[in-house]
C-alpha cells in the first residue's frame, strides 16, 4: 500500500489514478515540433524526487505532489490543478 498525501488527506494509491510526470503543455499554435514531441513523449524519469500529477477519482480533481521514486517519500502536495498543470 502506498499512502498518498492528497489535498483531501491521505489516500491509498489504488484509490487514485496516476497521470505521470508533471508537465506544462506548450501552446500548440506557437510551439515547435521538437517542443511538442518533448511534451508528448520524452520523460525525465529520475530515480529520486519527481513532481507528478495524480487524479483523485472520488473528488474528481487533479493535484500534484512530489515523490521520491526510489524511496516513495512524499512532500509538498498542492491544491487541485487542471490536468495540464495550470491552476484550477
Amino acid at each position, binding site marked *: 500500500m*502506498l499512502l498518498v498525501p492528497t489535498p483531501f488527506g491521505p489516500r491509498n494509491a*489504488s484509490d487514485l489514478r496516476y497521470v505521470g*510526470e508533471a508537465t506544462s503543455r506548450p501552446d500548440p499554435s506557437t510551439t515547435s515540433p*521538437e517542443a511538442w514531441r518533448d511534451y508528448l513523449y*520524452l*520523460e525525465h*524519469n529520475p530515480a529520486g524526487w519527481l513532481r507528478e500529477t495524480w487524479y483523485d477519482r472520488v473528488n474528481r480533481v487533479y493535484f500534484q505532489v512530489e515523490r521520491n521514486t526510489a524511496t*516513495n517519500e512524499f512532500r509538498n502536495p498542492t491544491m487541485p490543478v487542471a490536468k495540464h498543470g495550470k491552476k484550477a
Partner: protein
Amino acid sequence: MATPSSIVAGARRKLGAGPPRYSAAGLVRKGLSGDSWPRVWRDVELKSSYDVVIIGGGVHGLATAYYLATNHGITDVAVLDKAYLGSGGSGRNTAIVRSNYLTPEGVAFYDRSLTLYNTMATDLNLNVMFSERGHMTLAHTDGALRTMNWRAEVNKLQGIDSSVIDPTEVGKLAPSLDVSGDSRYPILGALYHPPGGTIRHDAVVWGYARGADHRGVEMHQKTEVLDILCEGGSGPDGKGPGGRVTGVRTSRGDISAPIVVNCTAGWASLISDMAGVKLPIHTRPLQAAVTEPVKVFLPTVVVSGSLHVYVSQTDRGELVFGASVDPFNNYNVGGSLEFTEELAGHVLELMPGISKMRLLRQWAGLCDMTPDYSPVMGDTDVDGFYVDVGWGTYGFKAGPVSGEAMAEAIATRAMPKIIAPFHISRFATGELVGEKGAAAVGH
C-alpha cells in the same frame, strides 16, 4: 567498489582454450570423479580503454557483446554491470517467448529472435530448456476477439503459426480453464500460437556470457557506471546532441571508449541522462509470483488481457504468474499486497480449481516502458552513444535478435533494416510502432 576476493580467486582460464564443451559424458565423468567445474567466464583486470563498452550485463548487453565478437570479430569489448550478470529483468522475467505481435515490424523482429532461440542450445552449447509448449491469449470480450483476429491475420501473412480458436478447443488444450461461459469474464475464444513457449532465462544469460568470454569479451560485475564522458555536445560538460562519447566513469575508475552502449532496461533513463539524451521512457515495476509445485496439469502458456494475468507451469510443477506493470513510476522492487490480492482473484476467475494452492514467492523487476510498447534501438544524437532500451515487459524474448542487430549497427555504423522502425527518431516523425494490443499484459 572492490570485487570480493572469493570471486577473484576463482581459477583463471587461458583465453582461447575455451570453456570445456558440456556433454552428457562430461556430466557423468564429473559426477563420478567429484571434480569441480571450471569457472564459466574469466575474471580479468579492468583496462583503461576498450573499443566498445556495454553498460548492463543482462541478456541484451551480453547478446550484443556475443554477436559483436562472433559475427563481426570485434572482441575488445567490456560488459559492465553494477551488480551481477542477470541481476536485472533478465533474471526476473517469466521466461515467455512468442512472435505473435500486432504490427508487421514487430512480428518480423520477434520472429527472428524465436529463430535464434530455436538453435541456441546448439550454438551456445548450453541447454536453455526451450519448451515449445504453445501460447494462448484468451479473449473475454468482442473487442478482444476482434484484436485476436486482426493479430492472427497479420501473423499468418508473415508465415507465423497463429490462429483464433473457439472455447471448446481452448478447453481441450487446457482443461483446467473455466470455459463454461458462466463466469464473470466468459472465455469467447483465444489467439493460439503453437511456437510460443518458455526458456530458462538464467541459462540464456550464462550461455551468452560464456560464449562472449570464449571470444575475448570481458565481463566486469560490481562495476557501476557513474557518468558518461562526452565532448562537443550542446549541453553541460560537452554532453547532449551534436557531441560524441569518449568513455565512462565507473566506481572502479575511468575507461575511455569511442562507443558506449546503453543496455540497462529499467535504469535506461538514468544512463542516457549521463550522455544528455532524453528518452521516451518511464520506469515501472512488474511483479510476478510462483506457487508450490504440483503435478503437471497446464500444458500451455495462458494469457488473459482483460484479467491482466498470465500463467504457465514450470517443469518442476510450479505455476508462474505475471500481470501488468504497477500503476505508477517506481524504482522499488519491493512488491505490494494489492498485486497479490488482485492476481489471486483473477487467476481463480480463470481456474477455479486451484483455490487451495499456496503462493511460494512474489518478486518484481524494473521495466522501461515506452509510449508505443516498442523498444528504442540504435544510435542517438550523441555520436558513439547507442541505446538498446525500452524493453518494457517483453525484452527477454527479444534478447537474441537485439544483440544480433545492435552488433551489426555498431560494426557497420548503419541501422539494420530489422530494427530501423525502432529508432528514437520515430517520436519526432510520429511513426510509432503501436504494440499495446499485443504487449499490455507483461510477458
